[in-house]
């Protein structure tokens, strides 16, 4: 019993908020590309915010519900439907046993998150449910979801009793019931097709030529088709070091903008390696990682510089907003 995958979609994986504590062993963090959307999907279904959910990429899967579930879909709008009726994002939805969830045309964003009340009945690997494709651990057998997979669910539980009562009262012939409320849009992530991404200078920023230092902030970089959960390969004006230098490998992280010798930058994403040896010209701020995670290959981004102080302030503000959202959601859900 649980969710049966009729069609897997382009890349559907199980992710949580990441695998920490093993980077010193070369084990990558993984986790949702858009952590804010994942956390909200969980809260809207009465889960702990770091519970595992499905990360669905651009072309969504087809999922058969083998039992009643309370779900929530957040992040990118990939036109989710049941019986050709559109589902709304960012709210709890009661889905009846026997329904088939499908996705259509991507409207805005790249990655959508599907959480189920109670979470999945899976084993953690090294403290996390996140799928680590290269090492073949976490998620469902360490792989992306395949046709025929059956993801066992723990099932609807009391952590969502208020919202379940609310949805049960609604009379409908449909195979699903959506909550009539959603969190204040002002507090939800705002995605753009070609966003401005805030970043701080990277550790090797000063090693770049004056032109490169100006180019990184003043030009649009295209997110090329060679972009995935490991990193986004960008295309734009080439960036160069003042003088060729062999760097000593050191830690890199989610949002590190590194520049290989050919001069086109790469932004490291959720499945980044733990260490790298390319010069790091910039580092995307944590608060803008969700926005970056939703950029569709082919679109453009522009970097704008902020200070470390501002970056940390923006992170604290984002966490504060999430805490407020959490409290307002829990009143309605629990």
């Amino acid at each position, binding site marked *: 019993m649980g969710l049966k995958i009729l069609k897997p979609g382009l890349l559907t994986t199980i992710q949580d908020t990441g695998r920490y504590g093993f980077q010193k062993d070369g*084990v990558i963090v993984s986790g949702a590309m858009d952590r804010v959307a994942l956390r909200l999907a969980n809260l809207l279904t009465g889960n702990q915010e770091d519970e595992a959910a499905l990360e669905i990429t651009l072309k969504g899967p087809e999922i058969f519900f083998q039992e009643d579930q309370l779900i929530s879909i957040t992040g990118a709008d990939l036109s989710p439907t049941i019986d050709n009726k559109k589902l709304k994002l960012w709210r709890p939805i009661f889905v009846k046993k026997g329904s088939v969830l499908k996705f259509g045309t991507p409207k805005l964003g790249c990655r959508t998150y599907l959480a189920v009340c109670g979470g999945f009945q899976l084993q953690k690997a090294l403290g996390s449910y996140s799928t680590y494709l290269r090492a073949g651990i976490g998620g469902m057998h360490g792989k992306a979801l395949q046709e025929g997979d059956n993801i066992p669910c723990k099932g609807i539980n009391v952590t969502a009793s208020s919202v379940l009562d609310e949805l049960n009262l609604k009379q409908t012939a449909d195979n699903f019931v959506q909550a009539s409320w959603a969190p204040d849009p002002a507090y939800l992530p705002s995605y753009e097709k070609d966003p401005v991404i805030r970043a701080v200078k990277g550790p090797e920023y000063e090693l770049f030529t004056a032109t490169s230092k100006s180019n990184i902030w003043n030009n649009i970089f295209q997110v090329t088709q060679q972009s995935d959960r490991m990193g986004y390969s960008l295309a734009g004006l080439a960036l160069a070091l003042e003088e060729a230098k062999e760097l*000593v490998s050191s830690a890199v992280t989610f949002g590190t903008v590194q520049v290989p010798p050919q001069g086109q930058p790469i932004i490291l994403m959720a499945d980044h390696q733990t260490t790298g040896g390319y010069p790091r010209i910039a580092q995307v701020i944590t608060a803008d990682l969700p926005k970056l995670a939703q950029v569709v290959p082919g679109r453009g981004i522009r970097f704008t510089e902020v200070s470390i102080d501002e970056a940390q302030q923006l992170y604290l503000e984002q966490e504060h907003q999430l805490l407020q959202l959490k409290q307002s959601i829990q009143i309605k859900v629990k």
Partner: protein
Amino acid sequence: MAITPENLQAVKLYPLGDKAIVVEFGGEINRSVHQRIRDFSAYLAQYPFDGMIEQVPAFTTVTIYYNPALIPTQKGISAYDKLSSYIQQLLPNIADAHITAPAPQTIEVPVCYGGAYGPDLEFVAKHNSLSPEEVIAIHTEQEYLVYMIGFAPGFPYMGGMSEKIAAPRRDAPRAVTPQGSVGIAGKQTGIYPIETPGGWQLIGQTPLLLFHPKRESPSLLHAGDMVRFTSISEEEYKQRKEQQHGS
């Protein structure tokens, strides 16, 4: 050399974005810098500060990940500034207290050299005008220092290989390098913990699992360990591989 007030002059602190601080102990790869990294890293492992998530020791740096929301600060002072002053105070204390990491472990890594297990052994030998046996003798002679783990889960960056067996990377990387492959690239030797594409010259294969997610420590090797390669027969390789993978 351990951390001393003198070599602390060379320490640099800088941010890696809003959730990590880098402590750099020197500009180049050497055993003295490595020892200081080991000492500092061992201290942090034993006494993590509030808000610390994890640390990644590398050749010349220790990068510490933290949650800015969990670093207690006064208004107007950023979590980075607070942490930076904490580490600046901590380093001389470590020096004064003569805190050092435990002695390194030596780990024996058995390797079946040549043949199907090391398809590039002949190339490495020819490149250096040696016989394959001489390459094996040189490779097993030294102890290697694991400077850091990175690139792949459990992959050791090791130092100490003799230049007599150095060899350039392959022109075309192999699409698949089997798990446990022992290779040479330039002046470095390494072991592939998982099957992956790669351009190293492969001289042998070990039956040991360098990465095992069910082990308490998923990586067999850790920064600071010493590695000694030993040559084993194909038969012994097969036996040990069965034992490893069965357990």
